């Protein structure tokens, strides 16, 4: 039986079920097929690069539930009032125009033997290579008292969009002199400097709008990314406003009560007005469903981002366990290009070049006070290994910090163009 993919996608779940036999390159096109799940920094980039570089020789389908994707990176700048929500929202029209088949649906199943992905809407997609870039989900029970049903009372705002807007609305509605609490996550987690940039942006907002308000951060870690830079910035810009409670002062001994709006840190209960709970994280659920995770994350081979569990399934970005790279949008974008090159090579015989990775994370502390940290990486048999790195210095001039912020804006424009076309 000859299958037409478009017809196939349009058929009902019942018909699809009858067709769910293995069908590698079985359709009329005879083109190799790649399915990418997740349209963020990893998935959108991989889909775009495979489609662009293969010049139509590979059939690329991107599965992403949201029609407008809000980047997690720069969402803190929205909280601080430096960006609008529309500034960080992106649609998939350019990817579709560039030849990527964009399907707005949830991937709910992966059949590795049949090499098919099933969607919540009932359709089934066949693949020769499957790229998973599902981002993060939260570990159940990570913060006692909190679960996803409490995300309206105590937002995580760690997947950008409505959660970020909710947190901003709660921040704006805080009573004068109120308390903003953040429960910071344990390692490893998405965007290592993210919680601390968020603290900075919340402080920036409060300083202008509610200057007697306080910020409490309960942190299970003894130290955090760019710590010296943030602490210097907090002392310079927001003196007396931020109380960071690290591991040694019981920052990891935390529970919350979303109904009562209380936070208990090391046995001491505090009534708070806003509580941003950022729980421990794990790979987005589809990675688990596909059976390519080991514990919370999906171990991958550094050379091409293929999973240790299945050579035809690749995992990019936050969901992957790859070695030294931080979980960041920049990292995911970098990994996606290595993966795209390898996938295209495997399917079309195009030349595969050695993997190279890089990352830079910019953070904004206050107006025109930007800092950055970055590194380059290489693939070793064991992992993605750091080669060289740099970090902004404390005490830098305001000109340098302003240029760093402007550079971050340039990077944002660059990476979103690289992802979405």
């Amino acid at each position, binding site marked *: 039986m000859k299958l037409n993919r478009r017809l196939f996608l349009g058929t009902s779940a019942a018909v699809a079920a009858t067709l769910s036999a293995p069908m590698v390159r079985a359709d009329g096109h005879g083109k190799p097929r790649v399915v990418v799940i997740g349209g963020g920094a990893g998935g959108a980039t991989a889909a775009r690069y495979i489609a662009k570089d293969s010049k139509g020789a590979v059939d690329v389908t991107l599965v992403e539930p949201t029609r407008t994707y809000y980047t997690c990176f720069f969402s803190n700048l929205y909280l601080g009032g430096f960006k609008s929500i529309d500034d960080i929202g992106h649609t998939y029209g350019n990817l579709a125009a560039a030849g990527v088949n964009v399907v707005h649906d949830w991937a709910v199943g992966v059949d590795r033997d049949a090499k098919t992905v099933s969607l919540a809407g009932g359709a089934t997609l066949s693949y020769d290579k499957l790229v998973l870039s599902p981002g993060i989900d939260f570990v159940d029970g990570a913060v006692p008292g909190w679960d996803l049903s409490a995300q309206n009372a105590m937002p995580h705002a760690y997947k950008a969009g409505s959660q970020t807007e909710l947190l901003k609305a709660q921040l704006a509605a805080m009573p004068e002199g109120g308390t903003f609490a953040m429960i910071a996550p344990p390692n490893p987690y998405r965007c290592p400097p993210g919680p601390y940039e968020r603290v900075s942006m919340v402080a920036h907002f409060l300083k202008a709008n509610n200057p007697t308000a306080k910020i409490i951060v309960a942190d299970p870690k003894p130290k955090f990314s760019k710590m010296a830079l943030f602490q210097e910035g907090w002392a310079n810009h927001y003196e007396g406003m931020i109380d960071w409670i690290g591991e040694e002062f019981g920052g990891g001994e935390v529970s919350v009560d979303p109904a009562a709006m209380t936070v208990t840190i090391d046995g001491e209960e505090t009534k708070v007005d806003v509580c941003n709970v950022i729980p421990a994280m794990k790979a987005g659920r589809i990675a688990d469903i596909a059976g390519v995770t080991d514990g919370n994350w999906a171990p991958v081979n550094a050379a091409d981002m293929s999973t240790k569990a299945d050579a035809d399934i690749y995992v990019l970005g936050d969901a992957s366990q790859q070695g030294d790279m931080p979980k960041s949008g920049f990292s995911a974008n970098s990994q996606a290009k290595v993966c795209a090159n390898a996938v295209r090579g495997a399917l079309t015989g195009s*030349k595969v070049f050695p993997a*190279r990775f*890089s990352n830079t994370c910019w953070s904004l502390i206050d107006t025109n006070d930007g800092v950055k940290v970055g590194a380059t990486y290489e693939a070793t048999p064991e992992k993605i290994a750091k080669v060289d790195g*740099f970090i902004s210095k404390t005490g830098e001039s305001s000109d340098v910090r302003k240029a760093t912020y*402007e550079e971050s*804006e*340039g990077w944002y*424009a*660059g990476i979103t163009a690289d992802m979405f076309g």
Partner: protein
Amino acid sequence: MAMTFARLSMTAAALLLGTMAAAEDLGDPKRGSRLYQECRSCHDVGRNAKNKVGPHLNELFGRPAASVKGFKYSRSLKRQAAGGLEWHVDTLHTFLENPRQMASGTRMSYRGMKAQQDRADLLAYLRQFSDNPANIPEADPTASAVDHDLAPEIPALKGDPDYGEYLSGECTTCHQAAGSDEGIPSIVLWPEDDFVIAMHAYKSKKRAHPVMQMVAGRLGDEEIAALAAYFGALELE
């Protein structure tokens, strides 16, 4: 007031330009030469000036837009040129105020010089390099491209553009492939020699930027040549 001062202080330029200057609404070329520092990383002007990221600016006044030989212009600017755009004081004022208002897809990713007086001063400076070739003053070219100590075989390496295309993924996370420039400079259609010299200058930490020192530090001679070949030949929309 500002104009009076400017006219008084431009005696040298007036002598050089004769009556042309009086007819055109030009400013202070000395101040213009300082303002030009903003332009020089992309535009060469003066004796032996050559094309860099932007075309050289000798003989700018009176020339048709998009007409410098050997320079790859955007389709957008070529369309304007086909419509008859020539560079004169008035058109240059409009272009410099905001290049994209005149050619929306121009490769000149410069946000624009908003102050009328600044533009007048800058144009007065550039006017000196335009009357005819004999009037180009005895000034060093603004290009720093020739000022390097690379072994001659390094710029002579012929890069593999396919490899460059793959490697360029590391660049396009920040530097936009479409060539626009918001906080991060454009690197597309950079002449290969200049590209190679700049990357080696980052590699040897003669250029200061820490991200670029790190990125270039890991590129070998072949890889720099491949990137230069790729970015130098990129076809733009």
